[in-house]
């Protein structure tokens, strides 16, 4: 009987550990991270293959917050990240102008693209302070919102002498990557006379602070 109870307790312990995956760091409780970065280090970027030349663009005007319970990341993660369309740079001034024009992303009418977190799944703990996971969210662009799933990872750094040089408080580094189809967002994929790939790869690299 004692063996059976200890077996049940073991199963209960294991299932609790698995279901409540979170960071094993000094911080505890719910933490909110702000990703607005005046230095422009935080970036959203896109990659598109065209018949003539591959296009990479970056957007550095990122804003938004993410909050979660440190010990139970998967079930408590929520937040929204936005990037200003006017900050997108492709390295060619004329192409930037076309990208932000009414024929394409229409920055005047739809100044921001955003990702709002819905749920988290497939969480893997790769280090005490690092998690890999899939995040389902509503991605909005060009006035259209669609559900997407991004592959992401997050690294939690408790405040120390090195992190203080970047920003006060604990830091959270987030990487995420997902694909979208331009036609689903009512974007005509003709750009400066060239066809841009229907499928665009979007990625985000950002570091936020909880102070």
């Amino acid at each position: 009987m004692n063996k059976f109870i200890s077996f049940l307790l073991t199963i209960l312990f294991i299932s609790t550990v698995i279901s409540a995956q979170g960071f094993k760091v000094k911080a505890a409780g719910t933490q909110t991270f702000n990703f607005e970065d005046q230095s422009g280090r935080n970036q959203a970027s896109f990659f598109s293959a065209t018949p003539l030349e591959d296009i990479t663009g970056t957007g550095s005007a990122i804003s938004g917050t993410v909050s979660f319970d440190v010990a139970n990341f998967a079930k408590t993660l929520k937040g929204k990240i936005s990037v200003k369309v006017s900050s997108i740079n492709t390295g060619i001034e004329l192409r930037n102008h076309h990208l932000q024009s009414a024929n394409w992303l229409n920055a005047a009418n739809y100044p921001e693209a955003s990702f709002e977190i819905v749920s988290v799944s497939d969480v893997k703990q790769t280090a005490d302070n690092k998690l890999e996971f899939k995040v389902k969210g509503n991605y909005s662009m060009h006035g259209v919102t669609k559900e997407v799933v991004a592959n992401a990872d997050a690294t939690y750094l408790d405040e120390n002498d090195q992190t203080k040089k970047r920003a006060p408080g604990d830091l959270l580094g987030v990487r995420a990557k997902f694909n979208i189809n331009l036609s689903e967002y009512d974007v005509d994929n003709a750009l400066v006379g060239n066809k841009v790939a229907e499928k665009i790869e979007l990625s985000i690299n950002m570091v936020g602070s909880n102070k």
Partner: protein
Amino acid sequence: MNQKQKRTLIIAAVIIVALLVIWIAFGGHIFTRTQVLIEKKDELFPDMVQKEWVNKFIWGLDLSLVLSVITIFIGSLLFYLFRDKKKIN
């Protein structure tokens, strides 16, 4: 074709070939650009790669084509102007 016309033709051809050589030397990019993307590792988050635009001129095929068209236009004009003018009595 007189000597001046021949010289015009050769110079125009050399300029066009030079424009193509310059284009290839700059990496054979289709579009001319004034910025290139470089990647930097983040000191605090080693897995993260930060992309940064730096000012650098890259000669593209578009620029070579525009200058080639201008060369052909000027060459044709000079070729016409250097033609032998026959006097009709």
